[in-house]
């Protein structure tokens, strides 16, 4: 870890940031956390901000992530949606893992959505890909490959009916 400065510099490693699991849904534009510095029931939220906030901001660069300290007696997380709705999550006496799990279930994208998005991104990235969802559907459409057997029949040494014929 270069520049091992500050408390828990592991939070500043690329590996840690990439390992963030919470990817917020597309409609969420602002994510705020309210907590107090002192108070035992705020400790969980405070630790959540300390450990998970860099990961959340890294995985959601277009979401405004803000923290407010010492404003209200109870800790909470508030998300603002594009549609105007708000999501209020009470974090009183909850540990950071509880809060994280709850957020993953409520406002995080599911693993299936994330995997589908990753595949979609890969397909769009690489123009050489072919198959479902790409420009070319089959390998026969790619220049330099064998033409479609529908149009030009394969040579006999490549056709199963000649190779396995009992004569």
């Amino acid at each position: 870890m270069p520049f091992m400065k500050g408390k828990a510099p592991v939070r500043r490693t690329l590996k840690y940031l990439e390992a963030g699991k919470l990817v917020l849904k597309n409609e969420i534009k602002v994510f705020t956390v309210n907590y107090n510095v002192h108070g035992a029931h705020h400790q969980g939220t405070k630790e959540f901000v300390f450990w998970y906030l860099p990961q959340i901001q890294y995985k959601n660069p277009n979401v405004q992530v803000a923290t407010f300290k010492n404003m209200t007696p109870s800790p909470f997380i508030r998300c603002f949606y594009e549609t105007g709705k708000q999501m209020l999550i009470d974090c009183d006496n909850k540990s950071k893992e509880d809060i994280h799990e709850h957020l993953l279930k409520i406002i995080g994208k599911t693993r299936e959505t994330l995997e589908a998005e990753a595949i979609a991104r890969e397909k769009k990235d690489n123009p050489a890909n072919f198959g479902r969802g790409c420009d070319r559907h089959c390998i026969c459409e790619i220049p330099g490959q064998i033409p479609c057997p529908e149009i030009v029949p394969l040579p006999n040494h490549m056709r199963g009916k000649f190779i396995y014929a009992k004569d």
Partner: protein
Amino acid sequence: MALPAASRSLLLLGECVPCVKHNASKFKIKRLELDTNLLMYFRKDDFVYAHDPEKKCKTGDIVLIEQLPQKMTRLITHQVKDIIYPLGDITDPITGKKVVAGKFRDHIEEVNQVYGKLPTAFDYGKAPERGWLEDKKDFTHVETYIKYHKFKNDDQPYAV
């Protein structure tokens, strides 16, 4: 990692800062920017002008602003949607009660009653709305500066 411009975001949460424009209020948007060498997030402030014809927002209020479908002027790109936390009068969203920096107002009242309340104590219920001392003792609605020269015809009411 460079942040996209705040003026292009659909929804933002900002703190109201003093503004001289008539129909608009200026907002400070606190966002985090990643320093690629240290891999650390640092606060970066952007200023956005939002359309607010009635001047509902006072300095220090936390306000939700949304992007206008079309820019009103070169600088006014957003409009005020909702005041989330007005300064001095914050309502706890979970309980719905009024709070004062980490304590409930009714809790403070009860404690004061037990200890004995002074007649000159500040009463939240009877206090007038924020802004009744503007231009007399409250100068948060403008940017003040330290007086550097006495001008002949200029009274300089906002020079400290």
